[in-house]
């Protein structure tokens, strides 16, 4: 269903919704950038062309989640934390980030049991789905997914780091969205995708005329052309596992967590005990201690192995397990890398022809 609404109407409706929902959306902090935050005043919502620094992931797979607690008592015992019961609407989510959530679903909320989110099915027709065969559902992640309606915003001005089209994501893609907004003159074109979306915005706006629809389609088609960066994604990379290519491309890596923490699809975590609470916190394969064993042995002792792991997880292993690349081409890891390492380039230029 495609409709158009004025900005005023849209924000009024968001204001109404904030009575029943927590509104999450991008907010611009002067000199700092754009951040997804809990929005208390609808005027704070930033729906321009800029991208948030952190992806929407942090509201689903949280940077730290408190799982359980074991009090300082003689009697052994565990108290687990229950996921919070609050309904949310995430506004301004980009197509790449929404696609990222769908990819995360395959790990934390596998499709077999996830009937609440219709669009979460992994790409049909791919060679295999969920080879891992996992049916584990993470209570916290699933809860966040179930209780959050996603209102997307199509991209108007991709920057030089964006390469989503190379990963099958479109700047106007609807995967993972309940509603998608297109900025048009005087307001938004609004595409209602799911029933949940209809539930909150269904009564709003007026149908688009055929002409307007046509215009929108043509604009949407042009959106893809705005992307300068195109990369070639190989089917498999296992021929170059032992190549010294990895040594070369990882040399300038400083082993920080920017690329993994800001990635909409990275989902490695660590379980930590702090003051008798068990926490789940982000972890990243780029950190030197990522796979450090208690014995002191580390199977990935250098940047080379760790960087290769990151690329392989995204463009090889995940594909084997879930049939898709674990990358949505959002460009964050390139944009924010302090030493300008470009994963797109590295994948694109991987010397695949070299046989093992």
């Amino acid at each position, binding site marked *: 269903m495609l409709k158009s609404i004025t900005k005023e109407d849209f924000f009024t409706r968001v204001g109404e919704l904030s009575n029943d929902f927590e509104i999450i959306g991008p907010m611009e902090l002067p000199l700092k950038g754009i951040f997804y935050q809990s929005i208390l005043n609808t005027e704070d919502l930033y729906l321009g062309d800029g991208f948030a620094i952190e992806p929407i992931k942090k509201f689903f797979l949280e*940077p730290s989640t408190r799982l359980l607690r074991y009090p300082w008592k003689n*009697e052994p015992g*565990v108290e*687990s*934390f229950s996921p919070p019961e609050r309904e949310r609407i995430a506004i301004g989510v980009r197509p790449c980030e929404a696609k990222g959530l769908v990819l995360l679903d395959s790990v934390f909320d596998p499709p077999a049991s996830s009937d609440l989110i219709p669009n979460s099915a992994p790409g049909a027709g791919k060679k295999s789905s969920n080879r891992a065969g996992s049916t584990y559902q993470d209570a916290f992640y699933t809860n966040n997914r179930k209780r959050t309606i996603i209102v997307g915003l199509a991209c108007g001005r991709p920057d030089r780091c964006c390469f989503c089209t190379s990963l099958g994501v479109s700047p106007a893609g609807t995967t993972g969205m309940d509603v998608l907004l297109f900025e048009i003159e005087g307001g938004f074109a609004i595409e209602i995708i799911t029933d949940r979306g209809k539930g909150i915005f269904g009564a709003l706006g007026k149908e688009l005329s055929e002409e307007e629809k046509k215009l929108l389609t043509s604009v949407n088609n042009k959106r893809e052309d705005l992307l300068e960066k195109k990369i070639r994604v190989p089917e498999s990379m296992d021929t170059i596992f032992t190549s010294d290519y990895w040594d070369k491309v990882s040399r300038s890596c400083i082993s920080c967590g920017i690329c993994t923490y800001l990635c909409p699809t990275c989902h490695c975590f660590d379980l930590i005990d702090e003051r008798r609470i068990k926490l789940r916190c982000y972890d990243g394969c780029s950190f030197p201690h990522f796979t450090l064993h208690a014995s002191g042995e580390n199977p990935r002792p250098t940047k080379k192995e760790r960087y290769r792991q990151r690329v392989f997880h995204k463009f090889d292993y995940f594909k084997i397990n879930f049939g898709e690349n674990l990358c949505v081409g959002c460009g964050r890891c390139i944009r924010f890398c302090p030493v300008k390492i470009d994963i797109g380039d590295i994948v694109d230029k991987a010397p695949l022809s070299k046989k093992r």
Partner: protein
Amino acid sequence: MNKSQIPDHSPQKNSGDRNLKAPIKDFEPKIVGFLCNWCSYAGADLAGTSRIKYPPNIRVIRVPCSGRVNPLFVLNCLMNGVDGVLVSGCHIGDCHYSEGNFYARRRFAILKRLLEYIGIDPRRFQMAWVSAAEGERWAKLVGELVEEIKEAGPNEHFGGNR
């Protein structure tokens, strides 16, 4: 196994929804004191043997030397809602290990200024020299600390979620 469910509120913590501690009127601050074994701890012992009364708000952690006190200990206390931290050692020149308090003095001069800069009330982190002969001084010091930290109020910025 004793298993129960406890609700967790917003993982995105805002300082606003921190539970305030007891109202300031009845506020009894919790103070942690790191005391060197040879002077300050012995001074506190002397206050005991001399039966000099002082408020019970201080918890003493015995360390061999003020030079043993890691700033991370102090930070850990403050971040977990302790209302005041005291590091106390031998007077300069009296250190049992001859130099420990010199290092402590330098280290905490920097930390104290840094904490103030970050916006932590300077009353919450203090340093003192108390000798083994200064039982009276120890008692007086604790009394003054408790008063000062009562004035500063509960350390409500931190530790509310723990």
